[in-house]
């Protein structure tokens, strides 16, 4: 079968920020990220219930550490994914990360400026929104190829 279309997997790019689970590295990244996120959600639910019963002790400390640990692990898995994909896919990923970084800086500067005037502050957890922004950049950058 011959095709001249580039055929980037749009759904996977927008949903997962990867080029689809067909590649073993992407499949591994999807599975391990999903397990990590499920563990994260399970712990936060358990932690919320446990903190109401035991407001002091190890549970609040663990609950504070779990989000960072979860996303550090996902970042590590993403790094493994990046070094496993081919050169064009990696180049597109890197460019989308660069654009996401610049978008994040611009948005942080805008929110910081608003915060200076209005005393409004953004919860840093909102920076998780950068991930769908990266997915959007991935889609945009891939259109060039």
């Amino acid at each position, binding site marked *: *079968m*011959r*095709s*001249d*279309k*580039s*055929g*980037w997997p749009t759904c996977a790019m927008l949903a997962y920020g990867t*080029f689809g689970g067909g*590649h073993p590295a992407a499949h591994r990244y999807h599975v391990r990220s999903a397990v990590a996120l499920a563990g994260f959600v399970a712990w936060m639910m358990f932690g919320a219930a446990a903190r109401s019963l035991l407001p002091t002790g190890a549970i609040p400390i663990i609950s504070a550490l779990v989000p960072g640990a979860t996303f550090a692990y996902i970042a590590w898995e993403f790094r493994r994914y990046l070094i496993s*994909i*081919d*050169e*064009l*896919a990696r*180049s597109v990923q890197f460019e989308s990360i660069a654009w996401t970084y610049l978008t994040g800086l611009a948005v942080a500067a805008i929110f910081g400026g608003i915060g200076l005037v209005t005393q409004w502050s953004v919860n840093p957890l909102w920076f998780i929104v950068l991930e769908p922004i990266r997915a959007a950049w991935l889609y945009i950058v891939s259109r*060039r*190829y």
Partner: protein
Amino acid sequence: MKNELRVLRARHNLSQADLAEKLGVSRQTVNAIETGRYDPSLPLAFKLAAVFNAPIEQIFTYENGSH
């Protein structure tokens, strides 16, 4: 950079997917090289040369002003 990838691929009766598999890259990468939207790295260019048993300069031609 101009290239003769499409011609060579047709001559060897390879689909983009076949060539991608031989090179260890995605079909999108082969497509992007073939359509001139992406210039491959030197190692990938050498792999292409090995697949087609041709010198690199027969596959790729530098054009002044190309990216």
